[in-house]
């Protein structure tokens, strides 16, 4: 049974169709990548899923329950955790406090403070921030800030985790660590939907890949198959030619 079902999802910004009639389904325990050239509408889909934007049309179902019209904090409590492409830790909270905050408010049922702190410590250790719980985010390198994002999203105990470009800007070593982390997450029973630009990552960890171009879904399937899809190659190469012409 599908954990997440999206049907005919559409979002316009003024005259621009950012997302057009996108439908897809993600099964429990799957790792699905969402790829596409810049401006294809990937982050817009995440914003629709997490309730930041209201879709113009279409439906989003999590475990059969309609999410459209619910506000972000409600969707979070229904079991959708997400990270942000541009890392946004709370600057005046330590690493631990950042994670505790989402653990305190994102979980259903609510847990007492001491328990949330224990869980947050455990999560920090698990993502590799165990030594840095008392540090302020601005004093940490990019990779660690991404770890905060992941720990924060996990602290809400999500069924579905949305990862928005968590691998970009990481060194190769850090990337392979991150891939390991994502695989472990799946073993914990978390379903993962991720936006990714790093193709090595996409090919490595995805069960399925969904390709978006100009807001429309142009291809979907196992990574090997999608990589040879003519339309996908056109979308990417087309973009490259346009770029080189600038």
């Amino acid at each position, binding site marked *: 049974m599908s954990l997440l079902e999206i049907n005919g999802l559409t979002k316009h910004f003024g005259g621009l169709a950012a997302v057009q009639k996108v439908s897809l389904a993600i099964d429990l325990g799957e790792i699905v990548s969402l790829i596409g050239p810049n401006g294809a509408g990937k982050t817009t889909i995440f914003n629709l899923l997490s309730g930041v934007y209201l879709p113009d049309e279409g439906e989003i179902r999590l475990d059969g329950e309609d999410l459209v019209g619910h*506000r*972000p904090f409600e969707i979070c409590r229904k079991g959708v955790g997400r990270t942000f492409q541009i890392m946004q830790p*709370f600057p005046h909270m330590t690493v631990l406090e950042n994670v505790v905050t989402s653990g305190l*408010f994102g979980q259903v049922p609510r847990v007492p403070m001491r328990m949330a702190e224990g869980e947050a410590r455990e999560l920090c250790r698990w993502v590799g921030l165990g030594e840095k719980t008392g540090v302020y985010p601005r004093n940490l390198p990019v990779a660690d800030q991404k770890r905060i994002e992941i720990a924060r999203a996990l602290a809400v105990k999500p069924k579905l985790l949305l990862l928005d470009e968590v691998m970009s800007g990481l060194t190769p070593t850090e990337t392979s660590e991150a891939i390991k982390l994502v695989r472990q997450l799946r073993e914990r029973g978390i379903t993962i939907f991720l936006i990714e630009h790093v193709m090595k990552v996409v090919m490595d960890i995805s069960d399925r890949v969904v390709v978006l171009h100009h807001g429309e879904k142009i291809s979907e399937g196992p990574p090997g198959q999608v990589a040879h899809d003519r339309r996908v190659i056109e979308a990417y190469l087309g973009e490259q030619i346009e770029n080189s012409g600038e």
Partner: protein
Amino acid sequence: MNRSFSWKKALFIVLLLLFALWFPRLVDAYFLHLAVTFFLAMILASSWDILARTGQVSVGQAALFGIGAYTAALLFKWVHLSPVLGMLAGGVVSVVVAALLGYLTLRLRGIYFSITTIAFAEALSVIWLMTPAVTGGAMGLSTPPLFGGDRQQAYYLILGILIFCIGVVWMIEASRLNFAFTAVRENEEVANVMGINPTRYKVLAFMISAFFTGFAGGFYSHYNTYIIPYEVFGLGISIACLVMPIFGGLYTIAGPLIGTMIVKVIEEYLRVTVSYGHQIAYGLILILVVLFMPDGVMGIWRNKVLPLFRTVSR
């Protein structure tokens, strides 16, 4: 957000409390009156800071203050309600108004909320002037002196409310509310995605803030024995509410209290020496703080003064 407990700090607080309790026996009526106005201002400053913790800047606390003041005065006029109960009623009515206003306006962000609060206070002032039959209009309302003019009792009452107010702030800091308030202040969108309902916590903070501001208004009307709309709904009070905590240092327990002490001393000195001098003081302090001490007195204490002692002790 770290809470450090030390015996030194506890001892200091106990001594301060004993001094505050003993204070009325040490001083004459002028200083007692001054202490009462200081405490009143501290309550306003601390309660403004409660709302500020969610990132909302109210420039219309006078609306809540005035509602509290008039609730207490009108209830006395109509049904001779005892002053202390009247003040309590003032606080409660302010909370109700804050809840209604909050739900309408706290979905707005930042500057829009601030502007709405200014407009609301001004609108109330006009409404009061236009309905003299009910509100007393421009002539204001008067009440007999509080506790038959016994300043000591008034002092202990306002001290009690101040301690209660500080206690509430302390409890907020120790609870999950602190995480919600800080998260909403630092990044409302991210807080939202992490399961925090921003509007709910902003309204809650506004209501807590309103209770103490309204109670302070009720106290003021009985203590001062005379209120007029122009004053209790005036921008002067709203500005005072925000200058004192900003000067002292935001989002701390001690900041608003210390800020109030210093600002009030300057204000009192200027009031005696220059006419309207205290209003100049507010403007100057605000400019100086914004330019040179963004974290207020507490920031200077933490970043400049404490390090000096650390090097000495090594």
